[in-house]
Each structure stands twice: as C-alpha cells, then as structure tokens.
C-alpha cells in the first residue's frame, strides 16, 4: 500500500512556488518545521494513488461521486474536495489565480481530489489569496480527508497567508499540482 507523504509534497510545492529571494524568511522557517517534525503524518490515500487504484464509485467519497468538472464557480467543482473559504473564481480571480491586488500564498494546505473525467486522483494545493478583505462570495467547505489542527497541512481552517505582505484572507484557489 503506497502512502502519501504531505511533507515531501510540501517541499515540492515550495520548490515550485516559493522561488526568489523575497520569500527566504518563510522558507527558512518552513525548513525548520520540516526538519523539526519527524513525526509528520502520512495520509492513507491508497485508494486513489495505489498502483491499481480502486476508483469505483464504491470507493469514492460523497463529494467525489457528485463532483463536476465544468463550472469552477460552484462548490461541487471537483478540485474543491477539501477547500474552505471563498472561491477566488467568484472574486475576480480564477480557480488557480488571485483576484486583482491579492497575493498568492507560497504555501498551502492540500487535498486529494478525483477528477470525474479521467477518474484519476490529483493533488490540489489550496493556496490562499491574501492582503485583501474577506471576499465572502461562493463560500465552500469541502472536507475530504481534512483533519485537525495538529496536521496543519491537511486542515482547511488555518489562514494560510504565510510569506505574503499582509495576512488578511481574501479567497482560496485550487491549484493542480499533479497526480496523487
């Protein structure tokens, strides 16, 4: 049974998104977190990511069974299986892009969602857009495999505005990282 390591994934995300010198502070601190946390959890998403994954409806969550891939301004859009907050796609941004004036957080919490078109499981980074007042449009709360504060990368209540100029929460994006 293959297991999913959100820490390793966190590092991957950081490498992709957090380049540049301005975010060195946050990287340093995150580095500390990763090094200092030998007991970070593994998430059993084997149903979705094993070599022969069982993607039958019987293995899917209620969210995955009713998810759609057409309208990313609706809560049941497939990438939103573990999102919590206002959809940036309703706030002047896009599913993976911040509205004008907002800043994309370099780090995020994550989810593993199943695309109804290809049946595959994908890793989604829910990167908050920060530095503007709460958008309060299209509020969604997907909770697939969402856990509690002691696993912050898998908790969708934390304000994930680290390394941004302002920590004010505006909305959340759902960035496709890759297959899970």
């Amino acid at each position: 049974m293959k297991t999913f390591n959100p820490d390793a994934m966190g590092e991957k995300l950081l490498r992709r998104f957090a380049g540049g010198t301005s975010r060195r502070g946050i990287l340093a601190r995150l580095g500390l977190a990763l090094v200092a946390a030998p007991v970070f959890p593994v998430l059993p998403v084997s149903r979705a990511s094993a070599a022969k994954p069982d993607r039958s409806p019987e293995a899917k969550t209620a969210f995955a069974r009713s998810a759609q891939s057409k309208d990313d301004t609706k809560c049941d859009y497939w990438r939103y299986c573990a999102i919590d907050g206002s959809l940036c796609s309703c706030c002047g941004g896009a599913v993976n892009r911040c509205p004008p004036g907002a800043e994309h957080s370099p780090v995020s919490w994550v989810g593993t969602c199943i695309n109804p078109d290809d049946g595959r499981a994908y890793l989604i980074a829910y990167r908050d857009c920060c530095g503007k007042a709460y958008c309060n449009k299209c509020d969604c709360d997907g909770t697939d495999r969402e856990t509690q504060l002691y696993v912050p990368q898998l908790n969708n209540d934390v304000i994930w505005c680290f390394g941004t100029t302002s920590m004010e929460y505006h909305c959340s994006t759902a960035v496709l990282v890759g297959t899970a």
Partner: protein
Amino acid sequence: MMKVQRKSSLSAKAKHAAIAISALALLASAGTARASDPLPPDQELEAVTLPAPKPSWVFVDRGFASLGTFIYDTDTGKLLGLIETSDISDLAIDPAGKAYYVSESLWSKGWRGTRQDMITVYDPATLKLKTEIPIPGRILIDSRKFNFILSDEGKTAYVYNLDPASSVNVVDLAKGKFVKKIELPGCASMMAVTGIGFSALCSDGSLATVKTAGAKPEITRSAPFFSATNDPIFDNFGYDRAKQQVVFLSYTGQVYTAKLGATPTIAEPFSIQAAAGVPVGETKPLVVNWYPGARQGNAYHIASGHLYVLMHMGEYWSHKAAGTEIWDLDVAAKKVVRRIPLAEEAGRIAVTQEENAKIVVTNDVGNITILDAKTGEEKFKLEKSGSGILQTLEP
C-alpha cells in the same frame, strides 16, 4: 478558513447521500472513463489585472461595518475585483482612470490606538497600494458621494471634515500633499467648480461658493433658496462636472437646477410629483403621497439629463424610506417619462453614464439589481453583494 453565514452545503450533501448511493449504477460507467494522460499541473500565474475603469462598471461599497468596494461590470454581471475601502471611508475615481483614491481613517490597533487619516492611492490595473497621503482629518459617516471630491481634472481633492466644526481639507494629488484647511461653517456636500474651487449646500438654505486659490479663501453665499429644516435638499444630487450643472431634489419632491460658477444661478424649482401628474408633495403630516426617499435616492444620467429617483408612498418625514418605484424624470422637459415598479424595494440607486445606460439599485440586505434604463428590464440580480454607496464613472 471559517466564515459567517455560510450555507450548510456539506450537511445538505450528507442528507442526500442515500439518494446519491442509489444512483451509483448510473455513475459507475462515467466514473471509470479515463483519458490516456493525466491533467498537466497548473502554471504559476500572477494575479489578474484590470483595464482602466469603464463606464459600464459600478462600484458597490459593501456597507457599514463591512470592508471593501466591489467592482461589477453591468454588461456581464461579473465581479471584477475589490478595492480596499476601509469602514466609513470614501472612494473617488480619477477621471482619467489613473488611480482609485480612498479617503479613510484608520486606528493603529483596530478600534483603538492612534487615529490616522489619509488618502490612500491604488493602482487601477493591479489594485495594489501605491501611496498614502496623510491628511489632518475627515468626517466619520457612512460614505456619501460629496464628502470626497476631485477637481482640476483629478489634480486636487477636497475632503470634508467635521470635528464637529466643519471644514474642508485641500489636497494636491499631483504632488501627493495636503495643502490647507478651509473653515466652512454650516455647509457641507461639495461640488467642484472649475477655476474657482467648490460650492456646498448650507444650513441657511443657501449655496456657498469657495474660491480656494488665494492665500485666504473667499466664501460667498447665494440668497437662501430652500429650507434646510422644513424641506431639506438631499445631500445626494446630480452633478454634470463639464457643464457645471447641478440637479437638487428636496424631501417634498421639489427639483432645483443650478448653474455653478463664481456666482451660481439657481432656477425656480418644480415638483417631481406634478411632473408625473400626481399631487404635489407637502410637509404636513397625515397626507399620504408619493415622496422621494432612500439613503441614496437619485442618480443623474448626464448625457440625457434624466434623473432617476427612488419614490415611495408615505407621509412627510419618511425621507429614508426605501423606494418602491423608480421615476425617470426628464429634467429639462419637467416630465416624468417612465415609472418603473421594483420587485424589491431599493435603498440606493446609481446609473451608468453610457449611452445605453443601466440603472443599478440595491437594498439593505445587499441584493443588487441591474436594469436597462430605457426599458426598465431586469438584466442581472446579484445576491448579498453590497448595501453601501454606489458609484459609476462620470465624465
């Protein structure tokens, strides 16, 4: 992210689970359909940027104790972005579309600490903060159109202050500097007067005109032409900056037009009710009639000279009551050419300055309705989007 007033969508989902499960046989085939290659990862994208402000846009303040002003396009009903207007701030739009200006008062620790008054300047493309211009004070009141106005093609700003003496702070926007304070006893609600300074409505029923250029400002007043306590003129009114023409409306429904200048001229008023063929509004109680009202109760379409007025049935002193109809008044013809009944009563109204103008109305719970100004036809309805002041781009 936790937030208030969310629909319990998840819980509803859970309830429907049983139904979903019974439909599994149908879903199964779709669930196993599979493309050969997985979806590619998203590219890193910068935040969306905006074009220069357009006449089709409406700027919707979210309301008292709410933060921000939404930008909607009335052509599409789409939300384009949010300008960071803080609570009880005022927004002004550079006439050339080069900046959004927010006149605001911030405390250093939320509701406490040191007060900081400023004009905050935002880039219209990125909506990022460009600079802050400190000012010595401003009135604290939910936003109105005429407490923070621009003049001289956007080079000068006038900021109304009440502390509780009334004054106006003059700001040079080109240099990013506060210039001076002008005492303005007993007057408020400013109109820019080209080459002169500004005019304002006064408690003695006059129009004051302030020449700002000299070392000492000169204030002159017209003869009183309305009663500030018996039949007040709404401090929201129509203003044609290019023609320096104002359209005022009083609580009883009297419509005054004025041509501004060093010596303004004010025309004899007429009754909007008479212009619609209904009895003229009176100040005495017990008479139920059509009255103008609401918090932002009229909007002026400059090119056509039409004033769109929120009207309601009531008695006198119901001047804040929400409107149940929009009356389309051709000001020059002194004729109400159309009465548009509203499905939901409206507390605020604005009109886009396009040739094919759209009317925007909102109510107290923040529902926005966009109507075609010519036909009254409803184009969009946007729920819980903002209950504060509405603005459109004006020439």
